[in-house]
Structure formats: structure tokens, C-alpha cells
């Protein structure tokens, strides 16, 4: 399993099995094919979860959205939030190794603020209050958006916008969903 951040580690069972089979002789493979329990194998494949960090993740939570976005998509995503949520001002609580600071600014100034605090978005942590809604990030594109009484259509629109900013698209239809991108392949569950 690779330990590099952002690299997909394939499912452990399948990888281990593939490695073992690869080492067998043709005769060994024949014998294995006769004794393997294919039903059990299928059950194992269904129960295992992928390990690692996807390129993109957008999923609903109890009160909003959780997202993993490539760094290039983070600023445009945050910049678009005040308009999506119809708020005119934001309050920011930013932390890095130098401590925490608070800012209060008009939504129109958010773009400039994000531009001059790229290091906080990358390696620090940040909480942005957009009216009653709250965006939290631990850096590196890991974001959580808690929405207060927002409609499910607003939630779906924000989720779609996040995907589109990252070069993917899906029109969500339900209240609960998740979208994952592994190796440039978008997988959606609704």
C-alpha cells in the first residue's frame, strides 16, 4: 500500500490475491481455480472499502456537504459560496503555526482575502461563517460545509458546482448522495 498522500491504494484483498496468483505457476493457477470459493470471493469484494484519498469527493452529511477538492478548485469553490447562499458578509477564523486570527469582511472582498492567504488554505485551518452557514477546512482541499435551513436544491447546486469546477459534472437528484473520483472516473451514489 502506498503511503503517499493523494495516491490511491487499491483494495487490499484484491491486491494481495493478485500478487499471490501472479507468483503461481500455470499448474498452480489451475489448482487454485478448482478450489477457490467464488461466492466467498464475491462477498469479500463487495465488503471491502477502497483505501486512500480520492481526487475528488462530494458527499452529503447530516447537515450539509463534505468535500475533498484538488487545491486548484478550492478558491473558486469558496469564492462562489456567498452568492450561492445569498450572504453579503463573511467572518473568518484562520489558524496556522503562528496562531489564530479573526477577520470580518464583505463577501466582495473574499476573493482578495483568499488570494493573499493561500498558505492557510493549503496547510492551515480555516472556518468561514457565511451568515448562518459554516465552512470548515483543515487545508489541502478537505472541506466541510454545514448549512442552516438551506433547501436541498441549494445543496445539490453547490455540490454540482464543486464537481464542475474540478472538471466533472453530475446533476444530483436526491437529498442524499456522494460523488467520488478515483483515477479520473466519476462514481456517483444516490
Amino acid at each position: 500500500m502506498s503511503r503517499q498522500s493523494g495516491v490511491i491504494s487499491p483494495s487490499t484483498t484484491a491486491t494481495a490475491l493478485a500478487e499471490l496468483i501472479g507468483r503461481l505457476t500455470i499448474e498452480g493457477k489451475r489448482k487454485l481455480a478448482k478450489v477457490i470459493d467464488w461466492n466467498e470471493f464475491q462477498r469479500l469484494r463487495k465488503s471491502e472499502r477502497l483505501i486512500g484519498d480520492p481526487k475528488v469527493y462530494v458527499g452529503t452529511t447530516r447537515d450539509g456537504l463534505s468535500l475533498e477538492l484538488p487545491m486548484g478548485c478550492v478558491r473558486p469553490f469558496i469564492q462562489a459560496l456567498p452568492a450561492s447562499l445569498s450572504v453579503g458578509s463573511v467572518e473568518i477564523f484562520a489558524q496556522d503555526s503562528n496562531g489564530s486570527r479573526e477577520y470580518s469582511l464583505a463577501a466582495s472582498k473574499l476573493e482578495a482575502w483568499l488570494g493573499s492567504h493561500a498558505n492557510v488554505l493549503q496547510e492551515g485551518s480555516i472556518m468561514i461563517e457565511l451568515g448562518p452557514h459554516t465552512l470548515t477546512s483543515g487545508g489541502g482541499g478537505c472541506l466541510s460545509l454545514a448549512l442552516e435551513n438551506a433547501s436541498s436544491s441549494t445543496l445539490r447546486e453547490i455540490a454540482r458546482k464543486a464537481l464542475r469546477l474540478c472538471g466533472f459534472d453530475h446533476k444530483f437528484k436526491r437529498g442524499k448522495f456522494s460523488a467520488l473520483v478515483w483515477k479520473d472516473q466519476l462514481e456517483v451514489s444516490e
Partner: protein
Amino acid sequence: MKKIVKSTISFYRLLIEHSQREYEPSPEHILKRMLKPLCRNFSEIMEKGTKNNAWEVIETFARECKKAALE
């Protein structure tokens, strides 16, 4: 609610949410994006916060555990 308290609760919720995803995030991701911010917040609460701030954090953590059926 004080911002440091709200931020701490948000990262705790984010940690719980990551544990319930359909894939397993890498240990590095959990460490850098949730545990480090949480640790920074704990230090700041210890340094500059009040006992009420600390109590509010613990109280809300307990509520979040119940909501996520982790008890």
C-alpha cells in the same frame, strides 16, 4: 459561541464524518486535516480559553457522539 469552540466542534464532526465514508481515508489525511487542527485548537483553548469554553467543547463532543450513534 466563541469561534475557537465552534471550530473545534467542526473538526470533531469532520473526523466522525470521515470515519463513515464509503472509502477509508489515508492516515496522513486524518492526521493533517483533522487531528492537527484539533490539537492546535485544544492548545489554544488551554492557553487562552476559559473553563466554560472547555466544558462547552466536551459537552458538544458528547452530543455529537450520540447523534452519530458512537456510544
